[in-house]
């Protein structure tokens, strides 16, 4: 579903991604871990075109988002194609990014109506189903400011799912939450994993990564140091940097 090859990203003179390659298959759940500043968020943001890459190639669900020409300059698909390709991915941010002027229900149905042109009557039952799934049906008329962090993040997940994506990207979905609220969000993500949603999750929750991810990717200094099945990576990390990081985390 995700096919990234030799992705390079520079901010001014700083090379933040230095040749990242990763494949994520259908139904796979991949966790990305690594120290702060290692480029985890940047990589995720490159996948859905929130950042543009300087070199490399990205394909999403069989369609080419960006590829390198023979002169190694990368070429993006036309704008309309980019939007269509990126719409196959939902994204959940650390700070939720809910729309504060809209109620929970309005947050969820906004994009399906505005972008997909669905009628209200079509999407409201879907939205209600998603809210029931994340356990927030009774909050549908509330504004986001009335919700706890964990509830906000579950609304954000429901909002992304309402666009019926094939892939979900999570960028530290629990890092802005009080510890006692992370459980409810992780439970929601775990349920998605059980439904075989393809997911790429940047997280600092090692226990979660070990339990839910089929593969864990350790990034450091803009590179993937190792990417292996969760159990293997946690029990016997190959690289000294991975080992040092994991020891620090526990």
């Amino acid at each position: 579903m995700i096919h990234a090859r030799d992705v390079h990203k520079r901010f001014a003179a700083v090379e933040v991604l230095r040749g990242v390659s990763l494949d994520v298959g259908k139904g796979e759940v991949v966790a990305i871990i690594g120290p702060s500043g290692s480029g985890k968020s940047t990589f995720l943001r490159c996948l859905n075109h929130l950042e543009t890459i300087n070199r490399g190639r990205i394909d999403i669900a069989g369609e080419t988002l960006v590829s390198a020409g023979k002169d190694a300059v990368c070429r993006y698909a036309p704008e309309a194609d980019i939007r269509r390709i990126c719409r196959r991915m939902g994204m959940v941010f650390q700070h939720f990014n809910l729309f504060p002027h809209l109620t929970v229900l309005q947050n969820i149905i906004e994009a399906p109506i505005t972008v997909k042109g669905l009628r209200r009557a079509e999407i409201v039952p879907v939205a209600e189903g998603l809210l029931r799934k994340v356990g927030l049906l009774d909050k549908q008329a509330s504004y986001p400011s009335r919700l706890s962090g964990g509830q906000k993040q579950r609304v954000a997940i429901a909002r992304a799912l309402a666009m019926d994506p094939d892939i979900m990207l999570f960028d530290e979905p629990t890092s802005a939450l009080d510890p006692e609220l992370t459980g409810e969000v992780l439970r929601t993500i775990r349920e998605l994993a059980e439904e075989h949603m393809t997911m790429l999750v940047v997280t600092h929750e090692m226990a979660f990564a070990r339990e839910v991810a089929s593969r864990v990717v350790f990034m450091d200094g803009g590179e993937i140091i190792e990417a292996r099945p969760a159990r293997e990576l946690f029990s016997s990390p190959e690289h000294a940097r991975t080992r040092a990081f994991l020891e620090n985390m526990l």
Partner: protein
Amino acid sequence: MSYVIEIMGPLLEGTGVTLQVFLLTFVLAVPLGLGLALIRISGFAVLGGLVNGYIWLMRGTPLMLQMLFIYFALPFVPVIGVRLPDFPAAIVAFVLNYAAYFAEIFRAGIQSIDRGQYEGARVLGLSYAQTMRRIVLPQVLKRILPPMSNETITLVKDTSLIYVLAMNDLLRAARGIVQRDFTTTPFIVAAAFYLLMTLVLTLGFQRLERKYAVYDG
């Protein structure tokens, strides 16, 4: 009291002129100001620079001077020179001037919206125009209500500047009667009229603020 009723006719006529200038300016300058603000934040350097220069010019010179220029000097400017009658000249000057102030209010409001809102909309597939219309501008509206209320109340009082084009607005009408009858009563009545107009605006804006108070942020 009977004197107040006697002078009511010309004062009401003056109020009509004042209200016309006010309403036309407001209705035209708000969209123009929004357009200018959108150009300024669009990232087109040349256009943005032009808008900056325009705002500097309009805020950096007196409105009265701008009005006098459009009425007396514009007819002699090559190419764009047109001779406007007094009322249109006043409206053009007011709209051009107030659009600059409104543009700055809109710009500050738009820039106060968190980048996460744009990204949240973007990953849901909304285009830039959809993001602006559905996500950003509704939130901007709430945030700019206080400065808009200020500027709008200032506009009511600024309308009295059109006396320089010899138009009979509320204040000039009052002054005419004062000079004729040697009494200051017309001034007091005019003050009451201005207060009434600004009260209506204040209450209107308060209502809007209450309406938007249903959400925080």
